[in-house]
């Protein structure tokens, strides 16, 4: 059933199934580009890119206030991909959004490319901050949020972290300070795919119970199925209406989402996509695109 929510500019609208399907269609196009890129280049972080497709597509197509003509437009919302190794997924979303040429994806991780292995603000103007040394993004997002409020600007600051990344102490330093500063223009999203770098989170020092940790630090915490477009859009809407504290969305995603042999497989944090594996993945994605073909109109 359609539910009334507001967009980033405060306009009310009904999120109906048609629109949700249109966004899902874009997500599958992004997945296809990710696979094509990994196959073409012969390496890259597949799992950490596939898990965040719905998060990035909903952000870049529905949530973030950006100017497609000007990556440095002063009033833009700021997004930091703190888990910088989700780079392929990020570039594929930029390409589908028309912010970089799709052809450029083939240059990923080659000499002189703007598409560095971890997202890089020196090379690509759409990137706010070079990341990949994990745990640093949220502090910078907090600084941006503080700066925006000082300027009296309604810019919002968004930060996407990996679940394993929150083992870094720097994340919790930022979390503590953000709550103290009542930074309600700051939204953290944690890609909780349950795997990290080749192992499951269970073998690590425990992060659970995860939501109560953020709540104890003074945050408003929302848990959503992280590959669910509608749930993500509703969560963004909710976060924008929380006053006096920052919000975290714990997005319970599936690592390697959308490629059956990669899903929830620790060995697919990264790896080589052979011709055969590429064909299999492409046929799975094509089948979903075919099923959603009535919705291929989203601009």
């Amino acid at each position: 059933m359609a539910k009334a929510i507001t967009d980033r500019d405060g306009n009310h609208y009904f999120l109906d199934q048609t629109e949700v399907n249109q966004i899902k269609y874009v997500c599958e196009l992004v997945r296809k580009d990710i696979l094509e890129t990994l196959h073409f280049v012969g390496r890259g972080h597949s799992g950490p890119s596939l898990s965040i497709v719905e998060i990035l597509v909903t952000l870049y197509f529905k949530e973030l206030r950006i100017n497609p003509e000007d990556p440095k437009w002063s009033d833009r919302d700021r997004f930091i991909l703190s888990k910088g190794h989700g780079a392929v997924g990020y570039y594929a979303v930029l390409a589908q959004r028309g912010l970089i040429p799709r052809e450029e994806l083939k240059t990923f991780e080659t000499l002189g490319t703007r598409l560095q292995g971890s997202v890089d603000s020196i090379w690509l103007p759409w990137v706010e901050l070079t990341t990949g040394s994990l745990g640093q993004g949220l502090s910078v997002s907090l600084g941006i949020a503080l700066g925006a409020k000082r300027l009296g600007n309604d810019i919002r600051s968004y930060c996407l972290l990996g679940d394993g990344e929150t083992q870094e102490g720097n994340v919790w330093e930022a979390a503590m300070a953000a709550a103290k500063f009542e930074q309600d223009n700051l939204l953290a999203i944690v890609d909780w795919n349950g795997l990290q770098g080749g192992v499951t989170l269970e073998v690590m020092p425990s992060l659970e119970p995860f939501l109560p940790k953020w709540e104890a630090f003074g945050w408003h915490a929302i848990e959503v199925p992280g590959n669910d477009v509608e749930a993500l859009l509703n969560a963004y809407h909710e976060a924008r209406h929380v006053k006096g504290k920052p919000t975290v969305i714990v997005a319970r995603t599936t690592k390697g989402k959308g490629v059956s042999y990669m899903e929830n497989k620790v060995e697919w944090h990264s790896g080589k996509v052979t011709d055969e594996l590429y064909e299999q993945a492409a046929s799975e994605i094509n089948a979903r695109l075919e099923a959603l073909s009535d919705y291929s109109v989203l601009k």
Partner: protein
Amino acid sequence: MEWQKSSLREALGKTLLELGGKVPNMLVINADLRNSVKSIYFMNEYPERTIEVGIAEQNMIGVAVGLSMMGFIPFAVTFARFASKRAADQISLSVDYCRSNVRIVGAYAGIFAGAQGASQQMIDDTAALRSMPNMTVIDTADVHEIRAVLHYAVEHEGPLYIRIGRDMWPVIFDENYEFRFGKGTWLREGGDVVLLNSGVLLPYALEAADVLSAEGIDAGVINMPTVKPIDVDLINDVARNVGAIVTLENHNILGGFGGAVAEVLVENYPVPMERIGIRDEYSESAPNDDLAERHELTAPHVAAAARRALKRKHKLAL
């Protein structure tokens, strides 16, 4: 020699306060040590432009980066040990690699840290930050140089690290002191040997020059606050025209100012050079004078180093 003395950290605090009145978009970020480093003066006058992150230096640096991206001029101010290597990776990637306009002020730099011992001293911050490709590193000698360097810092483009001491310390310069970015300055001409100083050991250099002069040795003194980018031209001039150098720094002799000078010499005019500084060891709790003596930083030791350099120079000339 009896010097008039003035507090280095007071100079830091008062200059931040002074700049606050001139630079509306300047912010000071504290990590709990506002009373020690005297940024409390700024905080008392401009509480709305002070950000206190607590004992969390990694977050301090990240927040400073974010604020700089929004057009503010953030000064992250705490002890040199915590301001530099406690957040070294944040400084490396978010500040240095990203060329963020963040000013990091490391107070209590070197071994003169209020007799608080090795954990509050910092002898390897220049070494760590100097090797970051976009970083500028400046050391300061007295209250007037501190003031001038902090004024310069507002205008600086890109990552900047400033070393500042703590205690009552000899006043060398006066109100007319002008900081020249990237340049060394002759304080005393001399043709036999040159004492190249960066930071608070400057009075020892000047005293040593007097000692040497009494022996008939013509010792020059150059003050070189900018450790990076180092004044290559002046170092080459000194090497070519004088041919014997002693460096002075309140830092490990490995990787710091002496290292920077040696790098220039070895690629251009490899002349005899001696280093005054902490000789690759940790220090301890003690009054400053005792520490200076223990680490052989004072004028007699500087003069001895100058004689050694001169002797090597004469050997070369034979």
